[in-house]
């Protein structure tokens, strides 16, 4: 068993210093006096704390000068031994706590009022009307909390949802190292499904084989559930596994996602029971060409939209059966999905940069009732793109 990533212990102090500086710079460039972070992913990003209870709210107050104060609802933070005569005076506080200037545990129904009071009294806001950013585009910030804050502070309230997500899209060497580990675990999980796939096997049995591989490798529950659909259920594109059993001649869509320290890496494939039919072979060849065309465009400076365009051009004959974008950025995320970062989607003008990692996964879905898909995680480098998965990209028969 590979042991699970320890909360707060995955990355070096230098990495957290880098993140802190980058975030403070972003807050300053946005002209904010303080940014109220409420998304759990961002708390993990800045402190390393992995959060088991996502129902608990918090506000992390970030200033341009690098200040980091956390006010969290009871139950979110792990207990810290209280100071006192019995406490070990030589024991340092936990790593996540070392990355904060202040951390307060607050009753949930008092959280927003407490934050408003903290902003008024403890942060040195400018004499002019302050500019306060908030993350209104995520589920984590409640409407009533924001109303309470607005009533409590006379400020310019700036919607800043994309501020930190934009920073996180380009990953450091340490983050890429964790993603490599997750990609390797996803490889093992898909291989376990391939090994278990035989005519008569149920979708849930195949998914269980993949889950077992992930569990023994120490993966946490992933951001996105495992998918496994056989025959006509593969055509559903997001088939959650059922007891349906695989029949000869059918396609199997399988997607497994591994997570370490909340860094998620997914791998998706279509398998063909007993080998592909002529139609299935043709669809696979088209999807493989779409993957290769897109991959060839994945270089720094190329727009994310151009990658999707290249992939779609190779699937022109199946245009009605393209259900989604060609890919999306992956990385640090909690359920229920990969936190939206940068999409490989026609019309997206933002350019690829070294350090970005995408799930590249062109597909043809619903054609003759099945989905044929080929996906890998791809790292953008200064030179050619690097595929992080070892799983074959050739057609897989089972």
């Amino acid at each position, binding site marked *: 068993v590979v042991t*699970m990533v320890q909360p707060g212990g995955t990355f070096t102090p230098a990495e957290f210093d880098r993140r802190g500086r980058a975030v403070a710079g972003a807050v300053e460039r946005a002209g904010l006096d303080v940014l109220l972070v409420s998304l759990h992913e961002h708390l993990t990003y800045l402190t390393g704390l*992995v959060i088991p209870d996502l*129902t608990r709210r918090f506000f992390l107050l970030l200033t341009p000068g690098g200040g980091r104060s956390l006010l969290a609802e009871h139950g979110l933070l792990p207990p810290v031994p209280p100071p006192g005569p019995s406490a070990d005076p030589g024991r340092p506080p936990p790593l996540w706590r070392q990355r904060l200037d202040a951390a307060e545990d607050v009753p949930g129904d008092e959280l927003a009022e407490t934050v408003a009071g903290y902003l008024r009294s403890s942060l040195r806001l400018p004499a002019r009307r302050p500019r306060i950013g908030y993350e*209104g*585009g995520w589920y984590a*910030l409640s409407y*009533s909390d924001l109303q309470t804050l607005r009533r409590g502070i006379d400020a310019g309230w700036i919607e800043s949802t994309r501020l930190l997500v934009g920073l996180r899209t380009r990953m450091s060497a340490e983050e890429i190292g964790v993603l490599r580990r997750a990609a390797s675990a996803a490889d093992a999980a898909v291989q376990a499904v391939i090994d278990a796939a035989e005519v008569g096997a149920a979708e849930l049995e195949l998914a269980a084989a993949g889950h077992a591989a992930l569990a023994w490798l120490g993966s946490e529950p992933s951001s996105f559930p495992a998918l496994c659909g056989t025959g006509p259920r593969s055509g559903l594109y997001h088939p959650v596994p059922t007891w349906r059993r695989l029949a000869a001649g059918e396609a199997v869509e399988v997607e497994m996602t591994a997570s370490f320290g909340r860094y998620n890496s997914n791998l998706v494939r279509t398998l063909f029971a007993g080998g592909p039919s002529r139609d299935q072979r043709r669809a696979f060849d088209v999807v493989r060409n779409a993957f290769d065309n897109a991959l060839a465009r994945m270089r720094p400076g190329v727009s994310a939209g151009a990658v999707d365009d290249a992939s779609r051009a190779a699937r022109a004959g199946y245009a009605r059966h393209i*259900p989604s974008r060609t890919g999306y950025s992956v990385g640090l995320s909690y359920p229920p999905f990969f936190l939206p970062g940068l999409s490989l989607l026609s019309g997206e003008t933002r350019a690829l940069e070294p350090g970005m990692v995408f799930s590249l996964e062109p597909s043809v879905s619903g054609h003759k009732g099945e989905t044929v898909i080929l996906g890998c995680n791809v790292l953008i480098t200064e030179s050619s793109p690097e595929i992080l998965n070892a799983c074959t990209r050739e057609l897989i028969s089972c």
Partner: protein
Amino acid sequence: MKPGSGAVPTSAGRLSSVTQAGGCRRLGLARLLCRALRCDWLLFAEPAEVLALSGFDLVGTFYLTSVLVPASGVPVLFTFRAERDLAAAQSWIAQVVCWSHGEDPLVRLLDVIRARTRREAGRSQQPIRLGVAKNGWLTVCQVEALEACLWLELVEAGSRLAAVASVPADEQRTALHGAAAASLAALDAGSARASAGVDEAGIAAAMAVAYWHAGAGELTRPMSVASGPRTPQAHALPGDRVLEPGDRLNLCCWGSYHRSPAVFGTTAVVGPPGVASGGHGDPCGSVLAAMLSAGMAAAAPGASAGGIAEAMLGVPDAGTVTDRRQPLGYCLGLSYPRRPHRFRLETGRRDIVGAGDVIVLAPAAPGRDGSIARVCLTCELTAGGVRPLPGAGWPW
């Protein structure tokens, strides 16, 4: 409604938490609520509400997937293009409307509301009244965009929407029992692996393997494994700590079967190397047992969440529980990872439990060594009383 819905198996195959009959009953109640609030539409956007009303078990819980219920006429299932076929296969709502990548889902949703209202009610002047939960699954940006829409009048209907969508149905029992079997299998596997010299991550892996092989659905919380000094943290994630003889060990599994959750947790004192842990003679046992009994006695239909919690804390020695701010349990509904429960059982809470509800009792008690013993027991509430889910014994 579509005839013959449900032919395609849903997320857990043969066992389903919802059926067309139950869903249509809830849709009927939603219509009544819509009229009572003098609304033109109600917007149900919580993933559990979408499942309860439509049968669609959305996978990625994307953005604005929702059910729109009009005061009269057919409801609308609104979802993301990539999940259109899944929605159409699972749902009994015939009208499925999608948005695609590059489209603003809110604009698309508003188009649907305006077009249907104009066409069916012949209205083009008065504002359209839309009932929503402002503090639910909608983001602040979405609520504010709806508020800014000049032809729309938002009506806050949060708790009433949740009440309609969470009306329990008998058919949920089968899936619930499947969830219980999977969660208990995980606990058995974890307990069997636990002995001195084994690390927490290894125990969690054994639990996960047993859980998935039981054919269960997505975990609504990660497996929780905590030993020794890590036990004070509720919902503790497993770490690399190696168990030592005499350690307190808490295990907990929040399993689900087609989004019906069952939560079980056990506690034990670790035996010597090579010997599985066991709870015999556990000094915390009598306090935990008394707290569970008090909770079950208090949890009659009509009881408040706070009343159940206070009954459990009224047990002698329960007052020594170090963290009284932790909930004493939960009332469950259909569960998704960011929404694992409907409400907590904690002091002062006024939510009411009723027949058909499912609750988790989760007492904690301090051990002599500073550790905390935790157990979880999922129970069904019936008109005749409270009973643990089948297969669940006393949790240690």
